[in-house]
Every structure is written in structure tokens, then in C-alpha cells.
């Protein structure tokens, strides 16, 4: 009953005209971005983050959350109609595009839209039920436990996003080191500033995000020179009753898988889609059709994608630790707005928390309208040539950077990070873990120093505390698993002849690296 009461309280806040407007705006922008080639939720949230400074806190967060899950919806549309693999829609390309080839585009879009709605709805129930109780668990965490949790997050993100623990972890550490630039909060010593005044406050988050995800992505897309053919096929949206009956079992399975995987460190929509697809291939009544353009192949992954996008807010809002790069940016948005995500957030700002949860369901309804009946309008977005798009995105990067401090010279820093991001992309180093490291770096340092102070300089505090010891144990197991997989891959490559290093690096299937 408490949940219902809290949700009613949340809807009271989310259903104001202002919040409805920003929720719809976020969903619309997110969908558009999801459709566009070369721009993901990370780049869009980075671009729009400075513009939310003048928007009230709850509306700004509702809008940014709308952009995130809106982009997940939009992704599947481009994947189904044109087989454009974005970060979050690689699985949708398989059966979704196969359905398009069979002339069932409308059915695939309807399935994706309705399944995403089901996934989003299930995830909101999970979020409302679990986040407050997880927040209570988080109160048991000490500095050493927080350190271990952040390290686990680094390892999981490294494995999931880059496929190579070494590359991913290296990027996390570079992010942590970049976060060291500026004044040391404990002693007041300026570090790595080289006498430059503009570095005393540290490197701006917006500069790092826009450089690494905006400018670097643009340059990479320009290198690829790929031309997109707009979708011109016919769309019949309404399915028959037998077709409709095939959607919901898969969507429910995907919702459960997505809700669970969204909560785990390093988890999120991409891995959830793969898991849901694999589950459907094992247990679905129509498993023999999956891979050839079946409803189940679209429904399960779409529901998992959307569910995971929403439940990934749970660790952020209840423990205060983001589990992936998008959530790290969301955390930055919370902090900019003066809200510290963590165990006390729900108690201190119930209106914000429950308002955000309720707005997700409202956003779900908006997205269903935007993506199912209005899908034809969105497909015209593809007709905008990239040569028109990219100068505009660069302009928005400049304005976004400028608006933080009203300082044009900050654009030099963004440009420098754009160059750095491009170099890293060319070296097959994914910038997403860097972002997580950059945002968590100062927090990691603070907790590490505090843990060391409390234990009088003894590292044993990390293994004597049960939570920390368990988390470090999980890290050890992950490392051993990676090592075993690497040795197996080595053995297989020796048996099958020389393999390129990049292939050998890819220990785990790396869906997100497909966009780099």
C-alpha cells in the first residue's frame, strides 16, 4: 500500500503542466536522437545538460531521464526499418530488420513499441518497490565498501562496454586521473593545474562529455563516409489477434530479465537485450523462428532494453553509485542541481524521487504515442543529410560549453577533449568508461582516504568488512573468469591459426563497441 501511496504522491508532482511539458520534450528529443546516426544518449545528455541550468530541478531531471529512455525507443525504430545498429539496438537489427525484409515493418514497430511499454511499466514497479529498501541497505556501507563497489563498477563496465578488461580499466583510470585535476579538497593544494586559473576548479564535466562523445563521434562518423538510404516502405501498424497474443509472453520475460540486469553494476540496456534474446531462443514456443524475423525476437529484447534503462536508475538513486556512463552523467545532473543521489535522497527529496518514477510511466505513454502512430513522421528525420547535421551539432557543442561559465575559452578545453576522444577511438579505447571514472574519481579518492584514515593506514579494512570483502571477491571471480576465457581464446586461435589482436581482445561479445 505504501508503494501505491508513494506513486500517487509522485503522480501529483509529475502531472503538473510544466513537468508534463518537459517530459514530452525529453521523450521527443530522445526519440529523435535515437533515430539519428552517430548521436547516442550520452552525447545528447551532454549537449543538453547546460541548457537545463535554468529549468527547475525536477523538470530538468524528468527531461534528461526522458531523453535517455526516449533514445532507447528511437534506437529500435532505426534498427528495424534500416538496420542502423546504434549502441542500444543491435539485437533489434536481427529479427526487426528481417521482419522489414518480409514486409512486416508495421508489425515489428508495433511489437517493439508495445513491448517497450510493457518493459517500462514492469521496471517502474520494480523501481518503486526496490529503490527505497536498497537505500536502507546502502546506509550500511562504509568508505571501504564504497571503494570496493566503485571498483566493481569499473570492472563490470570495462567488460561490458569494451569487451577487454585491460582497455576498459585503463580508460576508467584515465578518467579518475582527469578527475584529479583541480584543487585537492582536503588540503587545498592545486593539482595538475600548471598555474592555469581555469583549471583550479577542475576540468568541466561538460567539456569532457562534449569532447569525447560529441566532437569525437562526429569525426569518426565523417571518417566512415557511410550514406544512409531513407526508408520508403509501407507500414501497416495494427496486428491481428493471434499476432498480438505472441507479443506479451516474450515482453514479460524480457521485462523481468531487463529489470534484473539493469540493476547490476555494469549492466544496462545492451546486455539486457542480449540476455532476453537468448532466453527467448531457449524457452519461447516459437524459438525455431527466432533469427528469421519473428515477433518474439523483437518483443523480448525491446522490453528488456526499456526495462533495464529504467532500473539502472536504482543503484544511482538508492546507493549513489552510477552503474554505467549514462547514469554517471545523470548523477552529474543531480549534483549540478544540488541533489546528492544516495541513501538519503528518497527521504530528503521524496517529491523529486517519486515524481521522477511517476514521470517515467507518463513518458512511457508519450513514447507509445510518438513511436507507434507517429512513426512515419520520425522516419523523415533520416532524410536530413549528415553534411547539414554535423556543423549544427558542433555549434551546439560550442554553445553548451560556453553556457556553463559564460566563458568562450572553455571551448578550447572541449576541442582538446574532442581531439583526445578521437585519438582514443582510433586506438580502440572506448570513452564510456572514462566518463564513469571521471565522475566517480573524486568520490573514490575521498572514500579511499577516509577508509585509510579510519583503519590507520591498513589495507586489511578492505577484506575485514563483509560488504567490501564480498565485492572484492566478486571482482576476483570476474578476473579469473576473464583470464580463463582469454586463455581459451588463445588456445582456440593457436589451433585455428593467427588471429588479429583486436579479435583476441574481444573476450566478451562487445555490443557497444560496434558504434565505435
Amino acid at each position, binding site marked *: 500500500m505504501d508503494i501505491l501511496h508513494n506513486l500517487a504522491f509522485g503522480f501529483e508532482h509529475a502531472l503538473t503542466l510544466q513537468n508534463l511539458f518537459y517530459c514530452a520534450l525529453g521523450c521527443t528529443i530522445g526519440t529523435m536522437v535515437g533515430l539519428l546516426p552517430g548521436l547516442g544518449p550520452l552525447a545528447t545528455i551532454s549537449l543538453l545538460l547546460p541548457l537545463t541550468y535554468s529549468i527547475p530541478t525536477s523538470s530538468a531531471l524528468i527531461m534528461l531521464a526522458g531523453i535517455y529512455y526516449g533514445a532507447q525507443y528511437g534506437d529500435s525504430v532505426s534498427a528495424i526499418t534500416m538496420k542502423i545498429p546504434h549502441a542500444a539496438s543491435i539485437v533489434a537489427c536481427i529479427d526487426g530488420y528481417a521482419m522489414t525484409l518480409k514486409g512486416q515493418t508495421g508489425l515489428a514497430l508495433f511489437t517493439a513499441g508495445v513491448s517497450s511499454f510493457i518493459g517500462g511499466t514492469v521496471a517502474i514497479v520494480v523501481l518503486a518497490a526496490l529503490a527505497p529498501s536498497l537505500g536502507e541497505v546502502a546506509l550500511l556501507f562504509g568508505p571501504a565498501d564504497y571503494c570496493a563497489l566503485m571498483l566493481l563498477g569499473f570492472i563490470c563496465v570495462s567488460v561490458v562496454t569494451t569487451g577487454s578488461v*585491460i582497455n576498459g580499466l585503463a580508460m576508467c*583510470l584515465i578518467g579518475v586521473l582527469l578527475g584529479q585535476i583541480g584543487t585537492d579538497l582536503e588540503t587545498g593544494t592545486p593539482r595538475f593545474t600548471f598555474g592555469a586559473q581555469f583549471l583550479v576548479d577542475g576540468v568541466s564535466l561538460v567539456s569532457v562529455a562534449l569532447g569525447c562523445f560529441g566532437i569525437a563521434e562526429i*569525426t569518426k562518423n565523417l571518417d566512415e563516409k557511410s550514406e544512409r538510404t531513407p526508408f520508403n516502405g509501407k507500414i501497416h501498424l495494427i496486428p491481428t489477434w493471434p499476432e498480438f497474443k505472441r507479443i506479451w509472453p516474450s515482453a514479460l520475460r524480457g521485462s523481468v530479465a531487463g529489470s534484473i540486469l539493469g540493476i547490476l553494476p555494469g549492466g544496462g540496456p545492451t546486455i539486457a537485450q542480449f540476455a532476453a534474446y537468448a532466453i527467448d531462443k531457449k524457452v519461447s514456443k516459437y524459438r525455431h523462428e527466432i533469427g528469421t524475423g519473428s515477433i518474439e525476437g523483437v518483443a523480448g529484447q525491446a522490453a528488456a532494453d526499456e526495462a533495464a534503462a529504467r532500473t539502472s536508475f536504482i543503484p544511482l538513486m538508492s546507493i549513489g553509485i552510477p552503474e554505467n556512463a549514462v547514469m554517471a552523467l545523470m548523477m552529474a545532473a543531480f549534483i549540478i542541481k544540488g541533489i546528492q543521489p544516495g541513501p538519503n535522497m528518497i527521504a530528503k527529496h521524496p517529491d523529486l524521487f517519486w515524481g521522477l518514477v511517476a514521470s517515467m510511466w507518463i513518458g512511457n505513454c508519450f513514447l507509445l504515442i510518438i513511436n507507434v502512430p507517429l512513426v512515419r513522421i520520425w522516419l523523415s528525420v533520416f532524410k536530413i543529410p549528415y553534411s547539414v547535421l554535423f556543423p*549544427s551539432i558542433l555549434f551546439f557543442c560550442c554553445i553548451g560549453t560556453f553556457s556553463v561559465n559564460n566563458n*568562450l575559452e572553455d571551448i578550447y578545453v572541449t576541442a582538446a577533449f574532442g581531439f583526445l576522444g578521437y585519438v582514443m577511438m582510433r586506438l580502440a579505447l572506448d570513452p564510456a568508461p572514462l566518463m564513469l571514472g571521471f565522475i566517480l574519481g573524486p568520490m573514490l579518492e575521498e572514500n579511499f582516504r577516509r577508509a*585509510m584514515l579510519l583503519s590507520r593506514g591498513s589495507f586489511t579494512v578492505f577484506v575485514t568488512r563483509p560488504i567490501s570483502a564480498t565485492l572484492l571477491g566478486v571482482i576476483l571471480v570476474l578476473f579469473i573468469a576473464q583470464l580463463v576465457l582469454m586463455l581459451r581464446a588463445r588456445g582456440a586461435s593457436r589451433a585455428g591459426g593467427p588471429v588479429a589482436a583486436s579479435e583476441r581482445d574481444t573476450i566478451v561479445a562487445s555490443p557497444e563497441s560496434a558504434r565505435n
Partner: protein
Amino acid sequence: MLNQNLVRGLFLAAVALFFGLGALRYPIGNLSRTGPGLFPLLVSGFLLVLAIATLVKSRLVQAVPLEFSVAKIALIMFGLCGFVLISQHVSMLLAIVFMVFIVSYAGTAPSWKRNLAISAVLAVIAYGFQRFLGLNLKLI
């Protein structure tokens, strides 16, 4: 042709050394009373270990050629730096036109008509930001 794996290892080592040597300039303290240099030194140390592992691995696995297009990223950097300089010393409207024209050469088939149209739209958007969002843009 440069080996991507080798360059990656060198890049990581350079970053680790830059921050690691830089950290030595600050008080290190001890583990119970850490100074501002200790944490970056520890992190740089870990990064250096990963860099060495990458370098060793690059010798063991087949080389991957490094693809790097200097022209496009250079044009974009030039466009962005020009945007700042012209905005500071002349006006942002001119800076928009300059940036659009310069960066368009990084794309395919630049056209001055299209560039003018994009510049005009962006100028209107910039005006909107100044007028309605209160951004302090020096348009003229």
C-alpha cells in the same frame, strides 16, 4: 604502418607517466594521513602496469594497422578555435559562418549555398538562445 596495439600501449604509458611524475611534486604523506599526491600516484601506477601489459601483448599478437585521418580532425579543431577567436574579437555571427564553412570541408561535397543556409539557421537559433534562454552571446 603503425601498430594500433603498440601505439595504445605507448599512449597509456605516456598518460600514466605524465600524472605519476606530476603527482611526485605534491606531498605524498603516508597511508594513514594521505597527502594530495598519493592517490594520483597509486592510480598512475596501476595505469602504468596496464600500459606495460598492453605493450607486452602488442608484441605477442598480430599487428593491427592504425587508421588515423589527420585532415578531418584538424579541420574541426581549426573551425572550433576560429569560432572562439572570431567570437571574442569580432562577433559570434561571423564566427558561426566561419566555423560552418571550415568544418564543411571535413564532410562530403561542401557547398557554399548549403553552408550559408546552415549558418543562417544557426544564427537564428543563437538569437533564440540569447533572447529566450538568457545566454550572454555576443552576436554582433
